[in-house]
């Protein structure tokens, strides 16, 4: 594993011993669902950590805790080594550093408002001193940064006038607006058409390099997890069952569950193999 350069405390977002239990009530009985069991990791500036697992494995619960949309049952979230508070002000300050890109760009943008409105809000909330013209300038800059140019032609449109990929770019611009250093991307491309997915991921990678963003990339797609991330954590039923450098986890999986996941991923090289397997199985009775 690479080491960060010596000197000052590098910018980090650390999850330490995160636990989340949900209490489920059915009639008089209460059962406890351990959604996340003791998960720790550190996001570093300029690096991407991928969180993979099937639905129900706790990926999104971790994202929600990291965004302080959900309070952890136990454990801490530390920004640059300092504990982060839960109160209103502390949370607002935290969110100017940590932002999220949601899965569904068709649902995460408000159809009633223009693109300008979506970018203006975070800018005004997190930079209260900016004048109206400055806010518009900044919004235009953000749109140019996510390759929606000419920005002037996009800024006054509404979400329904944009394609899925363009909407997701707006969502990325919105996450960058407060000046965030850490981005939590929860399945950012799974709702997009296949031929534009890599474009959006490449954009995210470019922005990451420009701003030295720390990215938590949540996905169930192992192939993009491998190529897009430095490190991969495999989550199964709330537990991290395997973690390591991206290539190592994919090419040399240690845990049984990682192998199952890998075996389930489509592999065009295996063309015809499934058919032959099934035939052999049936022939054997």
């Amino acid at each position, binding site marked *: 594993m690479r080491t960060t350069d010596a000197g000052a405390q590098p910018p980090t977002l650390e999850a330490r011993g995160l636990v989340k239990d949900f209490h489920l009530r059915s009639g008089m009985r209460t059962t406890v669902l351990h959604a996340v069991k003791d998960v720790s990791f550190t996001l*570093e500036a300029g690096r991407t950590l991928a969180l993979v697992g099937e639905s129900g494995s706790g990926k999104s619960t971790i994202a929600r805790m990291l965004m302080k949309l959900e309070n952890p049952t136990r454990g801490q979230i530390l920004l640059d080594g300092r504990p982060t508070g839960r109160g209103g002000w502390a949370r607002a300050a935290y969110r100017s550093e940590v932002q999220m890109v949601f899965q569904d760009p068709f649902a995460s943008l408000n159809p009633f408002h223009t693109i300008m409105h979506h970018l203006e809000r975070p800018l005004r909330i997190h930079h209260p001193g900016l004048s109206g013209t400055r806010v518009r300038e900044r919004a235009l800059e953000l749109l140019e940064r996510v390759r929606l140019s000419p920005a002037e032609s996009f800024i006054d449109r509404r979400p329904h006038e944009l394609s899925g990929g363009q909407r997701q770019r707006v969502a990325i611009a919105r996450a960058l607006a407060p000046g965030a250093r850490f981005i939590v991307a929860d399945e950012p491309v799974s709702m997009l058409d296949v031929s534009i997915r890599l474009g959006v991921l*490449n954009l995210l990678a*470019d922005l990451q390099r420009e701003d030295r963003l720390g990215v938590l990339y949540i996905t169930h797609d192992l192939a993009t997890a491998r190529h897009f991330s430095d490190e991969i954590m495999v989550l199964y039923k709330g537990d991290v069952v395997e973690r390591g450098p991206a290539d190592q986890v994919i090419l040399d999986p240690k845990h049984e569950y990682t192998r199952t996941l890998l075996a389930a991923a489509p592999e*065009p090289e295996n063309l015809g193999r499934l058919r032959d397997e099934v035939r052999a199985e049936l022939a054997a009775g």
Partner: protein
Amino acid sequence: MTDLITAPVAEPVVACVDAEPVLTARHVTIEYEVDPPVQAVRDVSLTLNRGEILGLAGESGCGKTTLAYGLNRLLKAPALMTSGEIVFHDRSGADIDVAALGGEALRAFRWDKISMVFQGAMNSLNPVITIRAQIFDIFDTHRPGMSRRDKQTRAEELLTLVGVEPARLASFPHELSGGMRQRMMIAMALALDPQVMIMDEPTTALDVVVQRGIIREIMRLREKLGFAVIFITHDLPMLIEISDRIAVMLDGRIVEQGPAEQIYRAPEHEYTRRLLSSFPSLRGQRGGFVRAGSGVMGAEAAGPTGEGSR
């Protein structure tokens, strides 16, 4: 898990060796009659052979679902098939002109000869009646004389076939997991022993592990029962893995068609190549996907950057 049914089947149906067509579409054009009219499917010709899996690949809006609906005569206004012919070659040897069917004949044809597993199968079950009632519905419509006991036996057989306990017949859809609901949809599509099944994104909403289980199930049933499948999805790597032949669709046209191996190893059309390169290889090289700045400190990371986007 379903040895009960494995036993009496005679010989496994061999796909793609003797290419005998079961469904032929010639020059099909489907238009949405809105203002201005939209041609969703343009001059598509397609042949589906008995017992084969034909993959139909394409992105949203390319017309693949409209084409599937057209083949099954499920188009609703303003969609209209403006030209072309669709012929179904029945097991009995008779040819059925699908486009000319109407009224009772059409009702008898659908689901009996060609059945469909719909997109978003998670939501295509009726939430307020049991699975049993929904399966019985099929028999009530298509096999009016069937006794209650026969329906029950057949329904249990179907569930066993798709790997679900027969006891689940009494369940309501919300009591089942996503994978199980999908299996129920497949069981229903199998109910009348159709010769063609059209599957429209049957596994897109499911987890990879569950998805793999369902795909395997489909492949197994195909070998056993010998129906042909039109499998619609945007997941080209998966299609390559499971299909015998693949047709790639773009803007309502089939731009390339051929055996899965040829589509994978020697794609001819530019769009097929682009679609293939949209899926980075899991174990191989990065291909068109370039991610620079992989954690290396600032300056030296400024190597080749994101021009791989297109």
